[in-house]
């Protein structure tokens, strides 16, 4: 009886661990997809394919800042592999640098939101803040 209980408990723990791991990976993927969708909207405005809309622009930078805050918490030790992740081992080797990159992204997103008062200022701010995508991916993401 005790043995069965232990086995069940053990299985439960194992499943929880697997669940937590795949959860973190799918959560961070969803977060990055949200950034991608916001960037699509931003690029359309910057290229003149969509009209400049102050509220929309603010929401784009809010997505960036929110994701930047949340991201560093989504890389537990047990989520280094699995679920098609393209996270680079460097994330865990250089936690300080990884976290600093998101602080920079968050700060610059907030500054970009304040600076974007019209199309011209938005273009400059958007171009600047989206440079964070490549510079962070260069270090902390493997090729896929």
């Amino acid at each position: 009886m005790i043995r069965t209980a232990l086995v069940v408990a053990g299985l439960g723990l194992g499943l929880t661990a697997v669940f937590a791991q795949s959860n973190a990976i799918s959560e961070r993927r969803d977060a990055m997809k949200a950034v991608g969708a916001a960037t699509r909207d931003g690029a359309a405005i910057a290229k003149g394919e969509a009209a400049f809309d102050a509220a929309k622009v603010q929401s784009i930078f809010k997505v960036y800042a929110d994701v930047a805050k949340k991201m560093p918490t989504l890389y537990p030790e047990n989520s280094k592999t699995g679920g098609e992740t393209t996270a680079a081992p460097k994330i865990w080797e250089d936690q300080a640098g990884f976290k600093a990159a998101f602080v920079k992204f968050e700060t610059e997103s907030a500054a970009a939101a304040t600076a974007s008062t019209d199309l011209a200022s938005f273009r400059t701010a958007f171009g600047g803040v989206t440079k964070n995508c490549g510079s962070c991916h260069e270090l902390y993401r493997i090729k896929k």
Partner: protein
Amino acid sequence: MLRLRRLLVTLVVLAVAGLAGFLLLTDPRVVSPSPEIGTLPAPDIENGKLLFAAGGCTSCHATPGQDDKLRLGGGLALESPFGTFHAPNISPHTRDGIGNWGVQDFVDAMAAGVSPKGQHYYPSFPYTSYRLMPPKALADLFAYIRTLTPVEGRAPPHELGFPFNIRRVVGGWKLLFFEGAAFRPDPSKSEEWNRGAYLVNGPGHCAECHSNRNALGAIVKATRFAGGPDPEGKGWVPNITQAETALAKWSKAEIAELLKSGFTPSFDSVGGTMAAVVRNTAQLPEADRQAMAEYLKSLPAVQGPVRPARTGS
């Protein structure tokens, strides 16, 4: 006794002949003669700067960890199945870099893979692609590099296992795999396509990463541009042919956009060493990125090595 002596003599003769054959066949001047540079006009430094960006020289030759990507002190470690290569100093420093080189030395290095001392370079330095650049273009590039800041210091030597640590062995590799000459335009194709073909296959050396390699480290021709495992370690280099799962659904404008901003059509942003590539291609004129895209859109659909099954959910 007499028979034994005859056998010994035969063996020695064979060994000497074998060694002589090896030395002859792996001689840098035999397997990779230098192109004739002839008389060149005054170098066009602006064109050299453009080729420097197209070639992504800083990605390997800028000393890692510094902000100024134009200080070409070298030192980047390049992992490979054969050992670790260290990119050398190519700044115009007279002692540690290429400050003492002449145009011919530079052309020999880039188009023949041979050093001023007459030794082979390892193909980790992609002269297999750079060879497509004609002497005039190489002279322009050399003139531009000479305008940069001389940087002191040398990179550590390569760390390679036997027999790869013997440079002569590269001669055999060149015999098997090193071919081609300066790029010749295809008159049946547009000027834009030809420009793109030149940039992608020559200075851009895209195939060097976006192809898989055989056991001896040479690009497998049949699956050129079809991606494969990242030779530097973890990850997978994408297929960039027109295969259904590769770039078939990408428009020419979308490929050019990736080379400019690093964003894919779904606004994902490229990572790893491709981020550095984009920093370089972003400096090219828009017409050149469009030309590269035009050429890539013309590549036949090729299915590359099958990606290993992914683990996890």
